[in-house]
């Protein structure tokens, strides 16, 4: 750490978002399943019709042949298709009982890169960190280093940490497969999480490899592939376990949750079901959030768990600490908190093109003592900047 950073840590103003990892010791559990799942299609075209009976893991939607990004969607449940539209397919039924330890972690031995990529594409593996980008497309690049991102993407989340602790062999196997697919010499699992948002890939690459990404560059431009822990595991499960991506681990946390913990959940599980089985006290909760507390969304009617849903939070008024907006006192906490170094308080008044570097991580708004809705204003400034261009 530089002298300047150390000085800031010791006597500067507080700018770190606390991690709040009270579920870190909760082993991953399987929740009692919902009666149906509504699997989001993300642009893929249905291959089943209402009334069809599908097996767990069966293909139910795929992208058109010419589509730029090929997506495959599989049914997490065995049962009957009860509704199909362009956005989601609803399957009524039940999941298969978990087939524990069936996978042989042969790693990359004997597999050609193209075999791995095709298997991953057909298994519908996507990024599980939030962006839900198809993993096979990332594996088609040529890089020298693969990083598995074990830093949680948001405060409160502990699901990636638990997956690493309990299924580390599968994650390591996934890393080996990814390295082989992209022909990389180096690979590492990174789980040093010093601050929020350390888990953003550009910070991971900077902190771990000392390689700096230009504002609009992608990791592959500096020879790096970054995968989420659960994506790496899904890669292993797809190749070694021959199972498509149909479930993920999420963290359910917050003081209004009766049964906080880390749970395996089928993709497409209605959030309303989770509220019930996790005993979330909706009267005590000031906010219920799908995703994390910094970049998540307030719960909307009909919401389901997607590949990008890392958690479900029910926060009490004390945790949220909402308060009225008051005038800016120019304390400078926002710009010290900004991980990309934007002069936030100034930018929201006089936006310039640099606002496009904002990732909306929310760190500035968290530390603002005057409770100014900075992220909302930054989003507005970004939109204007794009329109004027």
């Amino acid at each position, binding site marked *: 750490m530089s002298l300047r950073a150390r000085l800031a840590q010791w006597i*500067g103003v507080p700018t770190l978002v606390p991690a709040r990892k009270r579920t870190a010791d909760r082993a991953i559990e399987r929740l009692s399943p919902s009666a149906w799942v509504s699997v989001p299609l993300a642009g893929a075209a249905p291959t089943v019709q209402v009334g069809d009976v599908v097996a767990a893991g069966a293909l139910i939607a795929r992208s058109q042949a010419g589509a730029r990004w090929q997506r495959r969607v599989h049914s997490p449940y065995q049962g009957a298709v009860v509704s199909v539209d362009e956005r989601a397919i609803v399957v009524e039924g039940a999941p298969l009982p978990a087939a524990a330890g069936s996978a042989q972690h042969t790693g990359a031995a004997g597999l050609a890169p193209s075999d791995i990529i095709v298997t991953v594409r057909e298994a519908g593996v996507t990024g599980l960190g939030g962006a839900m980008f198809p993993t096979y497309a990332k594996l088609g690049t040529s890089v020298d280093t693969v990083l598995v991102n074990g830093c949680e993407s948001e405060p409160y989340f502990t699901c990636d940490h638990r997956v690493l602790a309990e299924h580390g062999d599968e994650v390591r196997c996934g890393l080996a497969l990814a390295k082989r697919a992209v022909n990389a010499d180096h690979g590492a699992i990174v789980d040093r999480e010093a601050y929020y948002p350390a888990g953003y890939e550009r910070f991971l690459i900077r902190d771990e490899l000392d390689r700096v990404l230009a504002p609009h560059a992608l990791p592959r431009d500096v020879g790096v592939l970054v995968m989420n822990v659960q994506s790496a595991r899904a890669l292993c499960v797809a190749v070694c376990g021959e199972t498509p991506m149909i479930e993920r681990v999420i963290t359910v946390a917050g003081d209004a949750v009766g049964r906080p913990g880390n749970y395996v959940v089928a993709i497409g599980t209605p959030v309303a079901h989770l509220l019930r089985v996790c005993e979330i006290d909706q009267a005590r909760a000031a906010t219920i959030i799908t995703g994390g507390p910094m970049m998540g969304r307030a719960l909307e009617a009909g919401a389901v768990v997607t590949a990008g849903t890392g958690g479900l939070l029910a926060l009490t008024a004390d945790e949220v600490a909402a*308060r009225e907006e008051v005038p800016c006192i120019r304390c400078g906490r926002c710009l010290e908190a900004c991980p990309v170094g934007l002069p936030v308080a100034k930018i929201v008044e006089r936006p310039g093109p640099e606002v496009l570097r904002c990732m909306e991580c929310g760190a500035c708004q968290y530390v603002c003592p005057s409770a100014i809705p900075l992220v909302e204003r930054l989003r507005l400034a970004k939109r204007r900047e794009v329109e004027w261009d």
Partner: protein
Amino acid sequence: MRGPFLRSPQSTSHLMAQVVVALLPIATIAIWRHGAPAAVTLGGAVTAALAVEIAVRRAAPRDLSAVITGMLAALLLPADAPPWLGAAAGALAIGVGKHAFGGLGKNPFNPAALSRGLLMVLVPATLFAPAWAWDGVTMASPLARESGGTAPLLSAVWSGDVPGALGTSAPWAVLLGGLALVALRTIDGRVPLVYLATVTVGSIVLPGSDRIVAHAPWLVADPLLHLLAGGTLLTAFFLLTDPVTAPFAPLGRVAFAAIAGVVTIAARLYTPYPDAAALAVLVANAFTPAIDRWRST
């Protein structure tokens, strides 16, 4: 609705309350040491500051900023000030120093330092000027002993046994409050650190003017005296750390603190003004917009 859904527990009103509590030790010691006149000055300043705040905003105060400003304005006044001076300082600080510029967050100068500067011009006789500069004016600071007088003893400065502003009644009480604010991360500790370091280095390397060497030789090459006497500590921890009038960026604040340090020590060693700490705050404040343009992050 989209996130972030969390807020740091450090709110603006919370920060202000912490500053008020941190000022209580020095305010209490000042009253204990100087008695009723000090209580009148402090009470008058806070009351006047609150009254002007309420009159201008036509609403109850939203936070404790007027209380902080009133307390600081009073602590910059001499212990033997006439009874009305505190109220005048509090009213000037909030009326001219804060609301004339548009209220909280808009004022370019520290309101307390500005009120002290205005009073130096409006009623110079009641404020600070050393005897050897202007005849017949009482000496008002250990930094301004009479010609031929003895050097102020450090132990006397430390315990506040010297004439001076209310805020110099007990350097240790200022230090106590200030360090608590740094520990609580209420203020940016880099500002007092750089300011005090600049004053220290300046007091060691600057030879002082011929007049100072002739009339007040004890001011030369005594860093501890410059750190403890006068308003140095109050300036370091409570005036320069006012976020509204300091630059935004960390490096900008470091430059700002260094400017204030240079002005403080240069004024003491090269001008007849014995305690230019408040003046140094105003000069540094004037540089804030330029510093913000120089470094925005």
